Each structure stands twice: as structure tokens, then as C-alpha cells.
């Protein structure tokens, strides 16, 4: 018999996400995938999965799940919350450590604490069909994941494995730095010239606050108004995850992974790819400051981040055999 997780309570917005759906932005389909690809990858590493394996992405409030398998191994990464096991032997497991749970165990991830999003990786991963090359859920388009939607109470999420492997549990080599106060690095443009010189200065000198309107499509920020030179409409052009677009209100929106692939508002700047996961973790009410870097610096930062992630993944994999 296949394993499954029964959804006792779904959490606020829990979806299946893998690395994303690549290659369909020209027909209007966003990549979807994880808001925080770093945490997804580390969570997968802790349970011995390849980086491509889908996991559960949670926003603000995690789910309560019941194990319907001989055993499952799970790991939580991306927040400072804990996994609370509420049946069998009651215990809590900190984020960043894997745990093996047995049949009928009920475990819960409550409020995600300081972070808005986090990942629950499951050894083997959920067993959902790939749509257009990815299992990522795009809820607005009802595509991928678990029936194209977020999890609901009484869902049974099928698992690839009915049992987990016998081995020691793994812990992140060092605590994931949520970087909740780190300034966010941006490359100015593509349409910085649609804004007054003062607006660009204000954008880089002010603290913005993540507003409650933050979802997988974009995080609206609140703060000093950014003035356009001549109107807030441009001829619709391509958008990228991390783009900071500014509509008529003058309040910026950081586009995230379910963003529209094209848009008609000017983009004052673009969050560098290394820092998109950092923005992704910022909860409503938290501050964001921006600092400008050159594209070459952004690429170097991303490469350094990739090397560190690779090293962490290797250290975790080695620990399985100790």
C-alpha cells in the first residue's frame, strides 16, 4: 500500500512546490515553484531527496497532518517554528532537523514565527503528477500540485514511499540565517528612467514595510511614494520574479513566483536572484531596505550562494553515512 498524509488542518496556504515550471512564460504561465528556493533545497537535502523533489510550501500558518504510512521522514526549513508531534510520544523537533514519524502520528506546524514561508520536505516526496514538466502548484491557473489547488481539510496527499529509510537523522550544518534585517540588493531598472531622480533616491534611502497584501504573486510594500516622470503606464513588457513594479499609487510591489509574465507598470528595480528568497521570508509588518548593486556583482553573489548551498547539501549527505 502507498503511503499518504491526511490533512487534519490545512494551514493558511499549503501547496506542493518543486523547482518550478520552466519554459512557458511566453504563453503566459509563470514559473511558480518555491518562494524561498534555498529553504526548499535544504529541506529536501535533510530527508535525502534530490533538489528537484516536490515538498509542501506553507505560508504564515502550517498544517496538521496524520501519517498514513509505515513511517515517513520529514524536515522543516525556512522558519524558526517547530514540528510538534502530538500523538505517540509527544515531542517537538526544531526546524533544520529531520525526524522519522510512525503510522497514525499526528504532527503540526503552527505559526511560522518570524518567517512568512517555510517548507516541509518528505523523504521521497508527495506523489502528484507533473503538469508541463513540474509538480508546482499554480493556484490562480488551477495547474499542477494537488488538484491545482492548496491543501484542504480531509485531503489525502499520496506519498512516493510507504516507508522511510533506516538511518540517522540529519541536521543543517549551521542554522539557516533568515536574514530578516539584511538590506535587499537590487539592480536598478529595467525602467528606472520612468521615475524622477528623487524617486530613485527615495527608493534606496527609505524603509518600506511589507503590507498584509503579500502572496505568491507579489508582496505589496508601504512607504514613501515613488513619483513617475510621466504617468504610470508603459507598454506591457516582460516581467521577472523580483521585479519591483510601481503602479499609480506610487507604492512598490515586489513580484514573486506566481507573477504575471507581462505587465504594464514600470519597474524601478529588480531584486537580485540571491535575495529573492530573503524577501520571500519577510512577514507583513517587517521592514525592507534596498541597496543597488551592478549585475556583475549580483551574478557573483548568486554563484557564491550556490557554492555554499552545494557544500551544505554535501555535508548533509555525508552525515547519512556516519
Amino acid at each position, binding site marked *: 500500500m502507498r503511503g499518504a498524509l491526511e490533512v487534519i488542518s490545512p494551514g493558511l496556504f499549503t501547496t506542493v512546490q518543486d523547482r518550478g515550471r520552466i519554459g512557458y512564460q511566453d504563453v*503566459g504561465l509563470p514559473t511558480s515553484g518555491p518562494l524561498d528556493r534555498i529553504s526548499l533545497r535544504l529541506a529536501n537535502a535533510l530527508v535525502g531527496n534530490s533538489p528537484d523533489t516536490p515538498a509542501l510550501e506553507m505560508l504564515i500558518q502550517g498544517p496538521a497532518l496524520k501519517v498514513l504510512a509505515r513511517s515517513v521522514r520529514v524536515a522543516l526549513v525556512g522558519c524558526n517554528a517547530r514540528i510538534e508531534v502530538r500523538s505517540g510520544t509527544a515531542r517537538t523537533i526544531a526546524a533544520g532537523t529531520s525526524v522519522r514519524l510512525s503510522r497514525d502520528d499526528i504532527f503540526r506546524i503552527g505559526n511560522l514565527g518570524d518567517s512568512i514561508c517555510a517548507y516541509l520536505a518528505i523523504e521521497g516526496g508527495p506523489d502528484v503528477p507533473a503538469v508541463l514538466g513540474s509538480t508546482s502548484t499554480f493556484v490562480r491557473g488551477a495547474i499542477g500540485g494537488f488538484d491545482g489547488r492548496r491543501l484542504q481539510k480531509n485531503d489525502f496527499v499520496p506519498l512516493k514511499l510507504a516507508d522511510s529509510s533506516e538511518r540517522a537523522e540529519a541536521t543543517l550544518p549551521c542554522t539557516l540565517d533568515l536574514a530578516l534585517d539584511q538590506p535587499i540588493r537590487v539592480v536598478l531598472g529595467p525602467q528606472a528612467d520612468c521615475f524622477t531622480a528623487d524617486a530613485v533616491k527615495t527608493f534606496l534611502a527609505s524603509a518600506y514595510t511589507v503590507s498584509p497584501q503579500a502572496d505568491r504573486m507579489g508582496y505589496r510594500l508601504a512607504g514613501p511614494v515613488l513619483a513617475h516622470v510621466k504617468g504610470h503606464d508603459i*507598454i*506591457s*513588457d516582460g516581467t521577472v520574479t523580483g521585479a519591483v513594479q510601481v503602479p499609480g499609487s506610487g507604492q512598490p510591489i515586489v513580484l514573486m513566483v506566481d507573477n504575471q509574465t507581462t*505587465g504594464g507598470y514600470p519597474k524601478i528595480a529588480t531584486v537580485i536572484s540571491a535575495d529573492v528568497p530573503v524577501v520571500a521570508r519577510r512577514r507583513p509588518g517587517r521592514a525592507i531596505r534596498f541597496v543597488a548593486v551592478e549585475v556583475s556583482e549580483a551574478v557573483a553573489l548568486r554563484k557564491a550562494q550556490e557554492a555554499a548551498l552545494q557544500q551544505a547539501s554535501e555535508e548533509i549527505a555525508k552525515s547519512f553515512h556516519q
Partner: protein
Amino acid sequence: MSARFLPAGDTAIVVEFGDRIDRSVNDRVLRLSAQVRAANLPGVVETVPTFRSLMVHYDPLVSDSASLIAAIEKLLDSGGEENAPRKLWRIPACYAESHAPDLSEVAQRTGLSTEEVVRLHRDTRFHVYMIGFVQGYPYMGDVPRALVLPRRPDPRVRVPAGSIAIAAGMTAIYPIESPGGWHLIGATPIRLFDPRSLRPALLSPGDAVQFEPVSAHEFDTIRTAVAADEYSVPCEMTMT
């Protein structure tokens, strides 16, 4: 036609050919898109053509913007000017009142009869400039001058899938139910986006579209056939 390169962070470059919506500008965008795809440049993940610019998405772990810009400049210099034949889709459209909630208002605001609005729309061969907004949503132009209206001041929260709409000199079809601010002047029973297919979008940028009027009864017949995967949209090749 000179190009301007704009950075979109460290994962995309915008190649911009102008600041207007124009067939010749869009043709240049589409040609470069095909060239970049054919060139298989290392690190290029995908290209997204829009009205007047091409977005080239790349993987910063494989390539960087300076070498991509150099490679794209070479492609621009080598650019062939000939237009390839393109697909002409004949899309069934029901303009009956039951399927066209804004038709009489559009007639009123343009000073035309509803019959004239329909005739102008169905007699125009449209060009698919780009796909965006939601999956499979085609921005098609150009709408005859007499039918050019601004978007509705009060966008609808829900526009049914299949709605045919006009606004701001463009016409479009809503592939899925979504919010929308365009004027709904008809509906099509066909599927514009099918995630089961490896080429999920019916229309591609650069295709041509002509609407073929059908009755409400024919609309229902076609819709039933579409649901059973027993209908394909008539398509031919054209040079214009």
C-alpha cells in the same frame, strides 16, 4: 531598427526596439525571439516576446548579461528580414446578445449599430502581438479605429472563460475565468490553453486570427465537441 538593452536583475535582459505598439516593431521582436531560440545560447532559459521588446531569461549560474548581450548583438546584425509564413486561425465566435454582455454598450459608445460592431470585428484579420496576463491570453490587434475604446472604469471580478473582448485598440479572448476590465462583445467555445498538451497554448505570438461568426446553437454544438476532444480549430498557413 536599433535595440536598447535593459537589465532585469541578474536573470533576464530586456531587448527593446521602440516605444510604440506597431506591427513592424513586433515583427522585429518575434524575429529576434526565433533567432535567440535557434542559436541555443548557453544559459538562455526562455524568451518572452512582448509588443515592443523581448525578454531573455537566463540562468546566472551558466551565463551572464555581458556575454549574452554580445551574442544577441551578433544575432541582430545577422538578422534576416524575410517574413516566414504564419498560421491563420479561424476561431468560432458567437456575437449573440446572450454571449456578448457589453455589445450594445459598445455600440452606444462608438455610435455604431451592434451589427456594425460585429461586422468590423469579424472582418478584421488580427495579429497576435503577445501572450500574457494569464496563460494563453492573446493580445491581438489592431482593432479598427471606430472600435477603439478605453478599458471599462469598473473591471469585472469574474469574466467567463471564452469571452471575446476589446479595449485600447486590442482584442483578446479570456482563456480561463479571471478578473477583467475589457468590453465583452462575444464568446468562443474553443479551448485556448490545455495543460495536457506539450504545446499548451493554441495561439503563438505572430499568428493571425480571424473570427468566424456562429449562432448560439452552433456555439453549444462546438463546445460539446471541444469537451470531448473532438474539435480542432480550423487553421491554414498564410503569408500576410
